[in-house]
């Protein structure tokens, strides 16, 4: 099953490499370089998992997270942080993020978390359908 993934990070070198690495694993992902871009992308397409950098110029990762939770409550978010940092990660969790990963992250670790987040999303979707 294909997972719709969006990576949000302002470091273009990082984004570029990640896109390639996911791509080679047959998991095409979209990318956004800022919070605004991410929200625009979210409006156009329904994402399963969003990998969101905490510290970005302009809109802060935590702010974007809040808006994502409002607009697409079923989309799971994994916080990516190089910041001082369990704190921001924990804050993200409190705001409803699925998990957090400290930069520099282990790619396999991140991949694992993305899969688990997708599983949870599917469970949530199922639960909502049954509830409805």
């Amino acid at each position, binding site marked *: 099953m294909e997972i719709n993934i969006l990576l949000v990070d302002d470091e273009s070198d*990082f984004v570029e490499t990640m896109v*390639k*690495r996911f791509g*080679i694993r047959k998991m095409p992902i979209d990318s956004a370089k800022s919070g605004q871009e991410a929200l625009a992308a979210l409006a156009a397409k329904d994402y399963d998992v969003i990998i969101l950098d905490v510290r970005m110029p302009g809109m802060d990762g935590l702010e974007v997270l809040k808006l994502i939770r409002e607009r697409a409550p079923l989309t799971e978010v994994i916080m990516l942080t190089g910041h*001082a*940092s*369990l*704190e921001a990660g924990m804050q993200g969790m409190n705001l409803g993020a699925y998990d957090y990963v400290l*930069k520099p992250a282990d790619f396999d670790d991140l991949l694992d978390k993305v899969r688990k987040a997708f599983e949870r999303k599917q469970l949530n979707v199922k639960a909502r359908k049954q509830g409805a």
Partner: protein
Amino acid sequence: MLESSGYTKLRVKMILTTLAFSLIPLFILGYTIYRQFEISHTSKILQNLNHITENKRRTLDLFMNERISQLTAIAYTHKLSYFLEPETFERVFTLLQARSKYYIDLGIIDQNGDHVVYTGPYQNIRTANYKNEEWFHQVQAKGIYISDVFLGRRNYPHFIIAVMRRDGDKSWILRATIDSDIFDSLVQSDQLGAGGDAFLINAENVLQSKPRFGPKLLGKMDLGAVPRFPGVRSEMIVMDGKKYLFGLAWLENKNWLLAIRDDPTEELMPLTHTRYWVWGILAGGLLLITAGTVLTSTTIIGQLVRSEREKASLNASLTQSSKMASLGKMAAGVAHEVNNPLAIIKEKAGWMRDLLTEEDIKASPNFKEFEDAITKIEYHVTRAKDVTHRLLGFARRMDPIQEDININEVLSQTVTFLENEARYRAIEISTSFEKNLPFVASDSAQLQQVFLNIIDNAIDAIGKDGSIRIRTRATHDPEEVVITIADTGPGISKEKLDKIFDPFFTTKKVGEGTGLGLTISFSIIQKLGGRINVESQEGQGATFIINLPLRKA
């Protein structure tokens, strides 16, 4: 903190100021009271003395006046011929003696100086002629004469009073001899104290009455030249090197000076007593105030030293805390900035590794070299990441969890981690744990990290052969658990002691330590509400002391 000499100076200043402010009023008060008492007492003594002197003088003057008027009355009531009858004259004398037994004899002398009639015990002077005597001329000239006391023909101290009666162109003299003992009884009285005295002297300082002390009657009593003055006067006169207080008064009818002497030592006894009392009270007050001042200043200085010391240690720990806080911020910033490029490097290396699976690259002769290089890049990125993550760990603000921990258990668990390493280096780790140590509400994982850091450092410091002693004990007030970890290593120099908790301060070789272990330990212990201290002297090992409150305040 002040130097100890500064405290000594402060203390001396305090003592002196307090003493000055309390002793000066005390002495002024003491002196004033004494002085006032002295003035009032002295004036009372003088008043008393003047009063006695005045009374005595009146008595003496009265006595003299009475004698003179008696004799004058007798002389003028009858003609000479009346007295020439011996029986009549005898009767007059008897009458006189009845009034005053101090009359010794009575005689009449005619204008030629011949004793014409005499009655009294000294019949041998009956025929005496007084024509050339000084007193005879005096009485002829003045009508009344009172002599000084003398022994005379009777060889008995007496004085005479002579009254002249003129009868036409003739004159005769009625002369009475009076025992001078009368003065002794008139002058002396028990109003004077044990050392007091009273006497009469004439203008030449010859005694006219018997004093109680000193020369006999008719001896010299040298009071110096006292000019005649009216009324009563009191004076301090030095006699035989001793000061005496005298009440002085001249008699009215005779050029005699009445002197009443007070013994000042006796009269001033209450004053002396008062002086002793005043000195005693002052000395007592001095001792009490001095003791009190010394005690108070010692207590205050002690308090000051203690609070200064507390302030200094508080300052030191505040400085350390703020240093930690700012360094923490900096570390977090650096870590963040380094983490982003590290993430990119890591992902790029990962991408390269991904590409290595491609067939054509596998065939490349340098495939092995590429793989090695990527592995090394990944390894060193991980190493760098460890550093940045530890920095972030040091800087992180997360609240530690609170659980009831048995410190003894955490310590023995920590020791088991390091036992192998220690054994390998012939280092003995001995533990002495207080039984029934109270539980501490704290974070066991974080504490373990601290203990691990310290014991690990101790092992590194010792190197080979030595021992590490770990001790726990509970203290009351404040309720704390104290953990002491002492090693037999080379110790820490004084300059290094100050920096030991600073980040990136390490004595280990480059690459062996990050210099963050003790920094993290310090911030962990601080977050847990405790204190960590090191005591060490070069060459004598080092001791880490950790105080943990039972509950975080």
